[in-house]
């Protein structure tokens, strides 16, 4: 594929940490390695993450001065992003924008605006949502409106795709028959296996169970609180190491206090991304009690670090590993206990080889492949014909009796606003970006500075 210029647009990016943040960064890095030009557009993190920054492998990041309202997401207001986005996309000669995460207002807005500049759109959904609470109903409608005119959607698991398709109403009517849109892809999340090398097993009778998770309700900490004392009572040689922080920490502390398990359960508090491997390699079993999970990258990291995994059977988790590397439990305390029992047996009998597990995960997942598959999606999008404004209006009207006209009005106002901006800030007066980092210059410079040191 011809090298193109890609803009990743999302509210969730470095310096915030998390699954989406890491995914966007890694994907950008591997796309740069494949010869594309990639920039990231996100909101600023005051006081010091403002303006334009460069990250390590020649990745340019624009921090737009928007204030996040809740959990690092900005307020969706549909228009205020356009002046920034227009300038950036024109200056950087962007061909395609790739928005991430369905709660990112910047991503939604970029998808709404980009057709004005002839820029193509791809969207990756990272999470699962329900359908029955007020927040979900509102955000799902927002998602459906945004995805109505998108060129391609990527989901991280098959379950995630089923969820996104229903939430975003990604169906087409061909000759009276409703089918799924062709442009919905499944590309799994992935990891860098080299960062999760297992440690050689220590000769010891103690079996350590590791839990690394945000300590929140959705992560199923209630199940952990219910099963941990039972596990400790049944197996005197089992220890628990729990990393992470969150509202449910207090429950864990209380449980430890009540059952006098201070010497058996270790609570580590928040763990930095760089320390994840060192925590994981303390143990031989990884326990995940999540109640919902779209992909479960933490499980994969644990399996890669040579741990045997016990997990609840939720969301996309059953898809990510073969059945012999993981024990599943239904989300109830008895079954989690049963699965942990099974895992302790497997590990104590030495039926699980950490190094073999590492090699297998290495064979299953790697970033080069994911970047290539994403590139194929870009290729399909660039080759497909672009929708005209009239078609966009017609498709937007299909959204519903109330939502349809509202979003159509927004679409048209957006066009007028764009024309106003064209008059106010003509393209001729703009400073275009001509110089850019590439791998060779970067390496050469690194070599040079190394010499002068």
């Amino acid at each position, binding site marked *: 594929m011809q090298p193109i210029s890609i803009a990743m647009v999302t509210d969730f990016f470095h310096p915030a940490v998390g699954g989406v943040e890491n995914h966007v960064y890694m994907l950008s890095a591997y796309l740069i390695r494949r010869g594309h030009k990639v920039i990231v557009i996100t909101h600023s993190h005051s006081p010091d993450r403002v303006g334009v920054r460069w990250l390590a492998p020649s990745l340019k990041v624009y921090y737009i001065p928007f204030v996040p309202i809740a959990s690092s997401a900005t307020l969706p207001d549909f228009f205020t992003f356009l002046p920034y986005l227009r300038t950036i996309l024109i200056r950087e000669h962007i061909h395609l924008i790739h928005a991430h995460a369905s709660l990112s207002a910047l991503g939604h807005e970029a998808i709404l605006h980009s057709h004005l500049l002839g820029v193509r759109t791809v969207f990756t959904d990272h999470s699962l949502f*329900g359908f029955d609470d007020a927040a979900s109903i509102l955000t799902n409608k927002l998602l459906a409106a945004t995805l109505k005119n998108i060129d391609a959607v990527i989901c991280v698991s098959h*379950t995630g795709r*089923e969820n996104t398709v*229903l939430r975003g109403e990604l169906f087409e009517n061909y000759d009276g028959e409703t089918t799924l849109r062709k442009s919905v892809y499944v*590309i799994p999340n992935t990891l860098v296996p080299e960062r999760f090398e297992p440690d050689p097993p220590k000769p010891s009778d103690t079996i350590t169970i590791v839990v690394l998770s945000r300590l929140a309700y959705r992560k199923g900490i209630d199940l952990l609180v219910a099963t941990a004392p039972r596990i400790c009572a049944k197996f005197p040689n089992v220890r628990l190491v729990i990393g992470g922080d969150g509202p449910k920490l207090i429950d864990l502390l209380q449980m430890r206090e009540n059952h006098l398990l201070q010497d058996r359960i270790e609570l580590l508090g928040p763990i930095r991304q760089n320390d994840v491997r060192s925590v994981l390699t303390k143990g031989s079993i990884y326990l995940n009690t999540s109640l*919902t999970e779209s992909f479960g990258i933490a499980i994969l990291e644990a399996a890669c670090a040579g741990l045997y995994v016990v997990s609840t059977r939720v*969301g996309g988790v059953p898809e990510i590993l073969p059945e012999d590397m993981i024990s599943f439990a239904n989300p109830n*305390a*008895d079954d989690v206990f049963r699965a942990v029992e099974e895992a302790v047996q497997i590990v104590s009998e030495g039926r699980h080889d950490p190094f073999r597990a590492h090699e297998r995960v290495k064979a*299953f997942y790697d970033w080069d492949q994911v970047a290539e598959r994403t590139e194929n999606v870009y290729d399909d999008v660039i080759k497909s014909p672009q929708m005209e404004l009239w078609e966009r209006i017609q498709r937007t009207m299909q959204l519903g009796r109330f939502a349809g006209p509202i979003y159509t009005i927004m679409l048209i106002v957006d066009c007028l606003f764009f024309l106003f901006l064209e008059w106010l800030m003509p393209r001729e007066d703009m400073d275009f970006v001509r110089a850019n980092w590439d791998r060779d210059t970067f390496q050469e410079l690194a070599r040079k500075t190394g010499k002068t040191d």
Partner: protein
Amino acid sequence: MPDDSESHKILWKRHENRPDNYVSPSFLKSLRTNDNFRPYTYWPLVLLACALTQHLATIFIFVSVFVRLKENYLNPRILVWTSVGCFLTGYLFWELLDRTGLSHEHRRANRVKALKSSILIFLALMSLSPVLRTLTAATSSDSIWALSATLFALNALLADYSSLSPFNAVNRLTSVLSMNAAISASVVLASRLANDVAVFALILFSVQAFALFPRLRHRLGVSSCPPVFQVAFTLILSCLSIIVTMPLSRTVTWIYSAVQFGVTFLAPAVLVWAQKFKNEIRGPWDVAIPKVN
């Protein structure tokens, strides 16, 4: 070995000649719509709506009692005695309902507590009534009507009409707010009355109607007493409210009766009709509900 439908759903192995937008035949197979959906039927809904009807009736009875007090049609002493009578009848009911659930000692302790707090409230209201009479006396009557109407609306909106949790010991925040709104409404209305006895009678009545009666109603709703009682009780209350409102204003009575009818019979019918639009979507992406014993 996973069966064929499952083998489409794996991410760790990639089919060489299968594009990423391939849709397997098992796509959306695990989707379930209206899975544990139990449709409502009309008459049970009407029975549930009785709680609402009763509450509206209480508000209207209260307001017409106030108007009568204000216009001196009603001797406040009679109202005090009626309140006491209502309290005793209500307490008798409460005791009858208690007989099934609690132990003897527990009931005895409850009785002593109830007696103590009723004496306390009685005395406190009596000593406070001169203060309450002049509390908002300087405010113009228009403001008082508007304020009390708003507060009663708030009371009706927030009241606890549920009959689900059998032993709901802790009151929910909204039902406490609702009670406070009603008591505040009666306090502001009390300032329009002529003498202290009338104020005392009105506030005592409002405590009966808005603090004690909803608890009894909730109790009746969740207890397993036959629906006949519920229906009879509702019928008595709404007839009473219409009868006491009728001499005061014909228009209000008509509107009020229409609202009563709508709430009791039309609203459940609308809900039953609207159920055909129900589309509940469930699947593997739902947040699991942890079972902890």
